[in-house]
């Protein structure tokens, strides 16, 4: 190796090393080590006091997969993903297609639809808890206006999940709409003009031109939606607290209530490991397949 090449290589890698060490250190400290630690704790029965010393093997995992509430939380997470993918995102795309062009009132609608997203999740949960309140809430007022007995949506196990879906839809629909609008506005005007000259109507243009062009954006939005659904926590806490009768837990609220609040930190770690594996598998699979070319 000649000296010039050697110097170039050294310069390249020394820059790499200088930049990667701080990032790698932080990543290791705050991501890798906690995961390894959680995996270690998950083999112990530990109430958080002192060091874990009661080794229980896979008992925490066995108990977890036998636990009906955890299975229900897992299902809830996947229902939320399904609702997001098959109702929320198509609707967001539809609205984005309608208001991405510079038409009258477009900015107003964008702002209105995006507003819920800027609210903190806790605030959103609290606001909707009041809205759903069967005695004093807005839902009660509407029902009372029509002379009907108001429902207690978040108190009934049949309606509590529906109430949660509505809030999730309301809260996150705006951000996906904005992502799509950003994608749509990047489409070259010449392409759209060419389609128009060729006689394509709005529906054909949307279906044949716009959607195929923004497919990478849609794939990204689907990815964010899935991961967001798996991490759902802070809307549920003030809205239902996982109730009634543990019917509306997500995996993360399940972890909090059944691991942290019950001071079963070994068991909680096992839940954390399972959530991590699910998220990791989905993320890697998705990136290796659908987002491979993006």
């Amino acid at each position, binding site marked *: 190796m000649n000296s010039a090449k050697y110097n170039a290589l050294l310069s390249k890698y020394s820059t790499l090393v200088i930049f990667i060490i701080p990032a790698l250190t932080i990543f290791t400290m705050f991501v890798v080590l906690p995961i390894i630690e959680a995996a270690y704790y998950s083999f112990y029965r530990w109430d958080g006091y002192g060091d874990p010393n009661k080794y229980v093997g896979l008992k925490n995992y066995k*108990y977890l997969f036998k636990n009906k509430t955890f299975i229900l939380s897992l299902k809830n997470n996947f229902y939320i993903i399904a609702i997001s993918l098959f109702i929320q995102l198509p609707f967001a795309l539809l609205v984005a297609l309608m208001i991405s062009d510079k038409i009258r009132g477009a900015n107003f609608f964008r702002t209105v639809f995006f507003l819920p997203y800027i609210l903190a999740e806790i605030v959103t949960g609290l606001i909707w808890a009041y809205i759903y309140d069967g005695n004093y809430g807005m839902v009660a007022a509407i029902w009372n206006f029509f002379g009907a007995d108001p429902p207690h949506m978040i108190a009934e*196990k049949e309606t509590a999940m529906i109430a949660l879906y509505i809030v999730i839809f309301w809260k996150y629909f705006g951000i996906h709409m904005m992502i799509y609008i950003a994608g749509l506005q990047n489409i070259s005007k010449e392409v759209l003009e060419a389609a128009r000259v060729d006689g394509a109507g709005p529906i054909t243009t949307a279906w044949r031109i716009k959607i195929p062009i923004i497919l990478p954006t849609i794939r990204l939005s689907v990815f964010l939606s899935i991961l967001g659904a798996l991490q759902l926590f802070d809307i549920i806490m003030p809205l239902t*607290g996982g*109730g009634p009768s543990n019917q509306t837990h997500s995996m993360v609220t399940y972890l909090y209530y059944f691991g942290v609040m019950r001071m079963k930190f070994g068991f909680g770690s096992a839940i954390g490991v399972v959530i991590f594996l699910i998220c990791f598998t989905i993320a890697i699979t998705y990136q290796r397949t659908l987002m491979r070319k993006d």
Partner: protein
Amino acid sequence: MMKNLLKFIIGSASLFFFSSVQADTIKWLHLTGESSPEYPNFVRAVEEFEAKTGHTVEMMYLENESFKAKLPTMLQSDDRPDIFNSWGGGVMYAQAEAGFLRDISDVVTDEYLSTLSAAAANAFVYKGQRVGVPRNVSQVTWWYNKDLMNQAGVDVSSITMWDDLLSAVSQIKSAGITPICIGGKDKWPVHFIWTHLHIRNGGESLFLESLENGGWDRPEYIKSGEQMLELVALEPFQDGWLSHTWPDQAGFFGDGKCAMAFMGNWMYPAQKSNSASGEGLGDDNMGIFSMPMTPGALGDSADTLGGINGWLVSKTAPDSAVEFLMHLVSADIQNEDAAKGAYLPVVKGADKSITNPILAQVANNIGNSQYHQIFYDQFLGPDIGRVVNDVSTDLAAGIITAEEAAQQVQESWEFNQ
């Protein structure tokens, strides 16, 4: 001249040295908000103690759920509180077992202990080590609205058996009144009903036996579940009860929206402060009665369910922290708080200061009780305790059977062995 100057310097230095060594800062973590009736005496105790000893007491407030979530971490950090709130029972045992509590036997004098109710003081002894000082006792009873009961034609004095209570509920419901207010979202208010039925059906001996050897799915416990389901079948709770919290429950009762509530004696101030008017029910419109007996019960009708709350001392706390506790839980302060109806005191004789007839009745019930069971969700520790809360709520929601409820508690007990 030089000699005097030297004396002055040495004297000043010694004074500075000793005062800086001896003045402790005591960190006190509590759950009492500034609007609580006992809060003024918290401040008074701190001011008096600081003036008397030169130590500093640093008061730290946390809300109930935050306290439970943060405490394990705090106790393991260097910033741990010296004194903190406790409901005794399972959580306290776990803290003591892990070595986070200090044995204060060498600081607490026998003379001081003789001023406290022995049962209350012993609730803070773990394996022969005194780890804390009690502050108050409480009892869970049925609270009722006299006007609404009269309106429904219910004679409270006739409710002595569980079936009498069920009949009363039916009668109240027929009169178009909500029989029972309950805070189902918080779950613990619901567990009082199921576990008090355990106390009636099984008594102390069965509880102690289950605690030692398991068997939480015994017929006596299943019977409690079946009895609870009989009550649930009458749809006795307010609409939307699963979305209502304990403060909602207290407020509804204070607003006269239901005829009864099953709650601890803290209901007395809470039904006022949580009511829409801020006044709640007047003393003349409110009464209490004990959980009725059940057929074939092993327990005694005088057995009570409630709490013995107090203060624990952490492992690195200075002696002055214990001295502060002895000042805080003293006859002077407890008499004053009892007269205000803030809580039921543990200092002997302080219950005589209770002027409120309802609270005096509660104090009397506890005094007559041979078996005062600490709340199950506290006594059994955070895990099994919360399972008890969960299954009680599921029973009340009618989504599990009495057998399933008992079985889930047993499974949790086995998991924790």
